[in-house]
């Protein structure tokens, strides 16, 4: 993780009611403390997550919060684009487009207050003025009609942009009015409205996505700048931010989608394979036919005839297998089946390797425990060797490189296959590139295997010298595999993807440290399970809380004057990171 040391600004909220409308007291002051990288947004921090964007828009345009929100929802929380539109087309265009209406309406008010009843044009009833509400756009209707309108719209799922009831009025209704009126009749619906508003920040925002875990952990992840990245949620789920499936670089999202589909479809071909294996007449293991030749041989050394299954000698000519004459021996000539077979074998070639590395990854993950036990045994020994971080580092490197290796096979399958290839690459060109890539792949492969081998050694039983030797090997191999992975990504990004359809294939950049863990969004909000409550202010004291706690356990819930915990010499503990990561930084 990046260090948090540079962020020593304070962040706290004062408990003024106005700040909820965006009219801040002088002393209320908010800054998002921003360590770089992806962020976990929890239910409790969802409001805080949008704060900074709201604040920027509110400050620049001197707007109230609900107007800023309306603008941001319209521009899908893309503050930069919103500002660009402002600069290019001006404020009034910006407002009209988004349905923000701010009119100076004192005249109207004084004029209207002169009579005590008004006619509501919806229900066509006369009623006293205090039973009607006027929106920012100037249109006034009775509270019952407004409420009914809001309820219909919220049930239609249009909470985020409830327009005024007047015909052709594009203005978006003040969320405070909606909240207030709806909660009187339908508190649960008001809550739904609140949630819709808050979740717009996730739903309508291309930089924020729900974590795809099932059952859902309730978190969303926010990334910075690049959507093509791989992240780990605080629930442990690792995923590709762009397509929300498992992490798959250096495969592109499209390649991965095709590959997963192919793997599902081709599992039927596995049946093909079972149909196309025959038991060896000697040891009875299934033997696969390899190529067109009908003389097959089993690993046990037995040769037999594919057609009749009978044991034979090992020699054959075009017409005859030595020592055998079932008379049906013939090379398969049918072009079509040859081609289908060739495609299938090509797929199997890549799939086997992909699968082999995925399996190794799983086995090695299980081995982690064993290896860590060896470390603790070694640490207790009387020895001058104390530092075993090379083991943990080596393991991390091994896991990382294994994954790169496994996904490099589906990548190669599509990169050098016919399915996705555009006309850009000539046959010769492709062969050159393929062999270059395969060289890299093989280098990586052999180093990864070596690394795996060394980490598997029973070093806890070795003498210090021997351990030192393994340590050197592991450290070297870690460095080598890291740089080979980096090189492979570079080669893919710079030399290979360019010859596919432009823009269609993007890959998450190689991260030496592994898939980036999203850090907690550090906020001053006390945790509340119900977002609505955030709007209820209180006469809060000024007790400080170390960090927002996890569930709705905070006792002094009304207090917004919270300060973030600060470690004396900079740097924050992030409770969501495993100790090893925190220690290292």
């Amino acid at each position, binding site marked *: 993780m990046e260090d948090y040391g540079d962020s020593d600004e304070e962040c706290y909220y004062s408990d003024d009611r106005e700040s909820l409308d965006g009219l801040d007291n002088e002393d209320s002051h908010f800054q998002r403390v921003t360590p770089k990288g992806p962020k976990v947004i929890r239910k409790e921090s969802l409001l805080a997550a949008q704060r900074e964007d709201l604040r920027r828009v509110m400050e620049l345009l001197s707007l109230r919060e609900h107007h800023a929100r309306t603008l941001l929802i319209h521009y899908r929380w893309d503050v930069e684009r919103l500002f660009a539109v402002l600069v290019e087309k001006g404020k009034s265009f910006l407002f009209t487009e988004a349905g923000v209406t701010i009119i100076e309406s004192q005249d109207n008010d004084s004029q209207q207050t002169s009579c005590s009843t008004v006619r509501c044009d*919806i229900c066509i009833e006369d009623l006293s003025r205090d039973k009607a509400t006027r929106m920012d756009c100037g249109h006034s209707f009775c509270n019952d009609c407004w409420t009914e309108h809001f309820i*219909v719209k919220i049930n239609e799922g249009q909470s985020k942009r409830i327009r005024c009831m007047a015909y*052709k009025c594009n203005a978006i209704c003040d969320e405070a009015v909606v909240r207030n009126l709806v909660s009187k009749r339908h508190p649960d619906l008001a809550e739904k409205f609140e949630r819709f508003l808050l979740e717009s920040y996730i739903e309508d925002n291309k930089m924020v996505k729900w974590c795809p875990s099932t059952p859902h952990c309730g978190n969303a992840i926010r990334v910075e700048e690049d959507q093509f990245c791989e992240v780990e949620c605080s629930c442990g789920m690792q995923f590709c931010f762009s397509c929300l499936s498992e992490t798959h670089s250096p495969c592109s999202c499209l390649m991965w989608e095709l590959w997963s589909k192919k793997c599902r479809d081709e599992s039927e071909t596995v049946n093909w394979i079972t149909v196309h294996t025959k038991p060896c007449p000697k040891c009875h293991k299934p033997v696969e036919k390899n190529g067109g030749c009908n003389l097959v041989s089993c690993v046990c050394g037995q040769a037999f005839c594919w057609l009749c299954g009978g044991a034979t000698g090992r020699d054959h000519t075009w017409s005859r297998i030595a020592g055998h004459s079932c008379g049906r021996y013939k090379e398969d000539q049918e072009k079509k089946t040859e081609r289908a077979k060739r495609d299938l074998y090509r797929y199997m070639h890549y799939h086997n390797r992909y699968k082999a590395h995925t399996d190794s990854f799983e086995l090695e993950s299980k081995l982690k425990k064993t290896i860590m036990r060896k470390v603790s045994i070694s640490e207790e020994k009387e020895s001058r060797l104390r530092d075993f971080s090379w083991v943990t580092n080596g393991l991390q490197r091994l896991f990382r490189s294994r994954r790169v290796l496994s996904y490099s096979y589906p990548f190669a399958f599509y990169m050098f296959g016919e399915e996705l290839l555009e006309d850009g690459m000539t046959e010769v060109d492709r062969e050159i590139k393929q062999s270059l890539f395969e060289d890299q792949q093989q280098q990586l492969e052999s180093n990864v295997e070596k690394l795996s081998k060394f980490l598997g050694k029973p070093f806890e039983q070795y003498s210090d010298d021997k351990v030192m030797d393994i340590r050197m090997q592991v450290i070297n191999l870690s460095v080598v595999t890291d740089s080979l992975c980096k090189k492979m990504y570079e080669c893919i990004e710079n030399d290979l993807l360019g010859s596919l359809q432009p823009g269609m294939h993007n890959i998450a950049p190689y991260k030496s440290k592994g898939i980036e863990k999203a850090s907690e969004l550090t906020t001053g909000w006390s945790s509340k399970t119900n977002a609505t409550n955030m709007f209820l202010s209180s006469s809060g004291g000024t007790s400080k809380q170390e960090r927002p706690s996890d569930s709705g356990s905070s006792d002094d819930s009304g207090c917004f004057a919270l300060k973030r915990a600060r470690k004396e010499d900079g740097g924050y503990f992030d409770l969501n990171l495993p100790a090893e990561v925190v220690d290292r930084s």
Partner: protein
Amino acid sequence: MIDFSRVQKELQECSRDIESSGIRVTPKSDNLGRLTGIIPGPTGTPYEGGTFCIDITLPDGYPFEPPKMQFATKVWHPNISSQSGAICLDILKDQWSPALTLKTALLSVQALLSAPQPDDPQDAVVAQQYIKEYQTFVGTARYWTETFAKVSSLGVEEKVQKLVEMGFPESLVRSTLEAVGGDENLALEKLCSG
């Protein structure tokens, strides 16, 4: 629940200026949830001289949800299905506002008859014809108006059936037709005014 007190007020308001608007709305039954709207074909269009009936169904959320409207009279028009009578009109969908009424909605439907929008067709065949062979379109639309929207071209039994389909009780239809000497337009007017 439908706001029936508002519907009542709308009906009163509508009958008040039948003279100027030519728009009528009458309930099909007692419950006010199903009504018939009647609009005269706009002058200067192939629909001139026709009387068009529109089935109206009010959703529970009316007036906060738009009324459902569908031509009962067959019409040849790019934005109205020649099969089902379904109308493609924005204010009957997402542009509906509770501030609109049945009368204003029917006026919009009438305006649609005057100004077809073939770019947003409900009936692709009609729209194609409208764009490519405008004169043929006008001819067909006029023929349909003559055939389906002019009650006077019908025999007595057909007149009765037509008026019954609009939602009037058969016995009342027969007596009214008799009273006005078989002129179904007069009969309709009489039936509508109660």
